[in-house]
């Protein structure tokens, strides 16, 4: 079976750190940063990028639309 490899880009300045994406991620890719953005929010970032399959669940559920998702298919 072909394996999916994904990556996300979070617009950290617009992220409000609500964690809805973190909960929605099936592979525990996302964590909330210790650092804050200019608005003072602890933003989401991909802590375990190696686990990302590009399912886009995080982006689909993100209320602020700050996540962009990329995906490649790896041949075995």
């Amino acid at each position, binding site marked *: 079976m072909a394996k999916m*490899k*994904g*990556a996300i880009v979070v617009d950290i300045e617009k992220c409000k750190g609500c964690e809805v994406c973190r*909960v929605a991620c099936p592979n525990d890719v996302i964590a909330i940063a210790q650092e804050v953005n200019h608005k003072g929010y602890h933003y989401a970032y991909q802590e375990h990028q190696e686990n990302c399959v590009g399912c*886009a669940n995080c982006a689909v*559920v*993100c209320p602020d639309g700050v996540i962009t998702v*990329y*995906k490649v298919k790896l041949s075995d």
Partner: protein
Amino acid sequence: MDIKDIIKPENLVYQKTPLMTDKTLSYCPGCGHGTAHRIVMEVIEEMGIQSETIGVAPVGCSVLAYDFMNVDMVGASHGRAPAVATGIKRCWPEKFVYTYQGDGDLAAIGTAETIHAANRGENITIIFINNGIYGMTGGQMAPTTLEGMKTSTSPYGRDLKSMGNPLKMTELLAQLPGTCYVSRQSVHSPRNVRRAKKAIRAAFESQKANKGLSLVEIVSNCNSGWKMEPVASNEWMVEHMFPFYPLGDLKVDGKLVNNQ
């Protein structure tokens, strides 16, 4: 594989639709409004009807919806969005007209306009956000507030005897012959967002086919008003809101779905 090899335009699978402006949303962290806005705009983008669509913003948290939705829009007075939409649609019957309203707007002050627009079978789409509270004004009791639910104007919980019952507006509207498609959805999980988007698509398709009023209720959270963390508010919503406001289609193609 290096992340740089993945993040390339040809590998893009999801990004915010250009029909959402780049303005930072005015909603609290984790609020379902933003997701609901986005999937409405995604449906309009996918149907290719941006240039034929006119939206109506309400009064409430989404009073500034026109700042975020990149279509022609008008701001209505409190509760009157269905009347405003009626005026637009009667003037532009060939265009797509939708309202975006909260529960206070639609189910309290705007009850008459909502019911009569539905009963006339106005060929418009209503997106109804139900979070059981007045968010904008600081968390007061709404017509949809659950029994026992604490708000700033029901600080000891909603008492049915003195404060009345939570209003199932969507069930009520489904009974009217003027409505064609009526559905209740949520946007708290990826699966629910995808379902809600399908429902919104069905609502706009129903409008396209001139079948009468279509309505999608989105049961949503108000973590600030409910005084919870965003994720906890979604869990509370699943546990408490969904039993009273069950998700699913209530009316499809003018016919009530079983048990309605």
